[in-house]
């Protein structure tokens, strides 16, 4: 039985596919524009599929994928019962609060927060005893303060260029993020060859 990976679509997936290639796995069907959903390597040992990042822990928890590679931000926002075996050196960024430089937080008035990560954002502001109104957005979160939907945003920041172009600044850093290699709890114990493969990953 081949070992199946769930990868979060985007930049990190490309980096992981590079790692696969370094380990000697070749995916003849794969190209960036391919419409295929599941790709299997030449030897049939491993296969992977691409999904939206919040779906990665779901596939791994249920065992449809044995291994998943996804950011720590997603695992904190959508906790799953999986092993978080490796902290990979890819997909590095930070979870930040961002707003216009002149925006100040008053602890006696409610602030409006827009985020793709309502749970993380709420936990953070609860910890500060800051009353908030949380607005969930699916993407382009920077738009919210620009158009006046929210006072601030909680989002991942990599280079900070998007913020700068929109006149926003980082007000606080919540935590560092990198990609994690997560493993289904049953697969780790029952799938042959999985442990060896993870050890190879660890060395890269």
């Amino acid at each position, binding site marked *: *039985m081949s070992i199946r990976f769930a990868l979060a679509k985007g930049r990190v997936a490309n980096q992981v596919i590079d790692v696969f290639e370094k380990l000697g796995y070749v995916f003849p069907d794969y190209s960036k524009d391919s419409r295929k959903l599941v790709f299997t390597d030449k030897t049939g040992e491993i296969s992977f599929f691409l999904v939206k990042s919040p779906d990665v822990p779901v596939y791994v*928890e*249920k*065992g*449809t994928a044995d291994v998943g590679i996804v950011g720590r931000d997603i695992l904190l926002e959508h906790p799953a019962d*999986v*092993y*978080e*075996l*490796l*902290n990979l050196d890819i997909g590095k960024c930070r979870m930040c609060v961002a707003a216009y430089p002149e925006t100040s937080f008053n602890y006696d008035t409610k602030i409006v927060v827009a985020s793709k990560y309502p749970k993380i954002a709420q936990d953070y502001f609860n910890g500060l005893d800051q009353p908030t109104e949380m607005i969930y957005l699916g993407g382009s979160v920077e738009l919210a303060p620009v158009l006046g939907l929210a006072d601030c945003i909680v989002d991942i920041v990599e280079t900070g260029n998007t913020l700068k172009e929109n006149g926003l600044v980082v007000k606080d850093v919540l935590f560092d993020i990198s990609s*994690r290699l997560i*493993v*289904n*709890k*049953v*697969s*780790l*114990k*029952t*799938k042959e060859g999985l442990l060896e493969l993870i050890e190879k990953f660890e060395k890269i």
Partner: protein
Amino acid sequence: MLASYTIDGFENIKYQGFGKLKFIENRLSELYERYGYCQVEPPTFENYDFYYDRQDVDRNELFKLISSTGKVLALKPDATLPVARMAAINHHDPQEIIKFSYQTNIYKDFSSPSAKKETTQAGIEYFGGAGPACEAEIIALAMMSLLLFGIKDFKIDLGHVGFITSLLDKLYLDGEEQAEILGYIENKNLGDLENFIAAKKIPQPYADIIMELPRLYGSPKKVLERMRSISVSPRMEAVVGRLENIYDYLKDLGLEEYLSFDIGFTNRMNYYTGTIFKGYITGLGEPVISGGRYDGLSATFGIDRPACGFSMDLIGLLDYLNQNALLPESEVPKFILLYDEKNRKEAFKICEALRKDRSAEMFLNAPGIVEKILKNPHYKGSQIVRLGETSCEIVERGDWS
């Protein structure tokens, strides 16, 4: 239609699955009975106050309701708690050996909209025995419960919470920090575990031993050897001895090939005090069996007695057995007789005689009746016969004739 009558997280077990579920339940209760376990049925409702201060059950996950006298009740989220209480109420000698088995529904995960909220469990509990042989018997029966249905590709993964807790006792962490570090160990989260150890300045040799814990899993012999080499207290050595004892017991039964070890299991969010185990079937994403020793639980009901047991997710097992065609198809041949009112009495007689070895149903002969029956998937493969005044006409031969 469906939208207004379906509640998320509850299943309707239809006739196809029901017979198979009963088959599984019967085979299991027979097995447990042969090993001396008496079947009991715990009640559906529990007193909500009981869960008020417990660390092992999350109150947000419970389904609560209010009785006519204003008392808050909960649907039982677990079978072991009520079974332990039943043992405590009726058997007052803590050393008395009591063996119970049960098959019941439990209700939990009410904080998540999509999670399965009602599940059917089977399990056994062994009260009044403190030695490793009791856990070994429980583990052996867990293995036999799967072997019984022809499942061979499985592992019972055994750990012991004492190895970790005896280490943590030396570190003086507060409750929150303990929960955090146990979470990292349980999820084999080496990255965050390393950061935690550095941040809390945990001294050597403990730091190295803790970093080793998530990696302590795999074949029993290998793990035992590693555990022995990193044990730093008599309590840790006692854990190694106990696990070895259980391994030897299962070896004498010829079941050791189904055993693996994982020392990363913790007592976070559960009531286990010693050995703890989970049962995994290859290809099934979630564990089907979980169990262990819970010596402290019965004391909350006033009788301080040692106990161990396991429970098994029967719906998960049923799905697996169905997917892998491991259940016998026990369908009886189906016979359908079309009759007229004039010959009804004779039709009764014919059907009654046939019911010895098949199902026989009668329908009044009316236009379109044959098409109606043929369209119904339930009657697929049935033999259909039309009873005339002087003779019978075979309408459909069916699969069985």
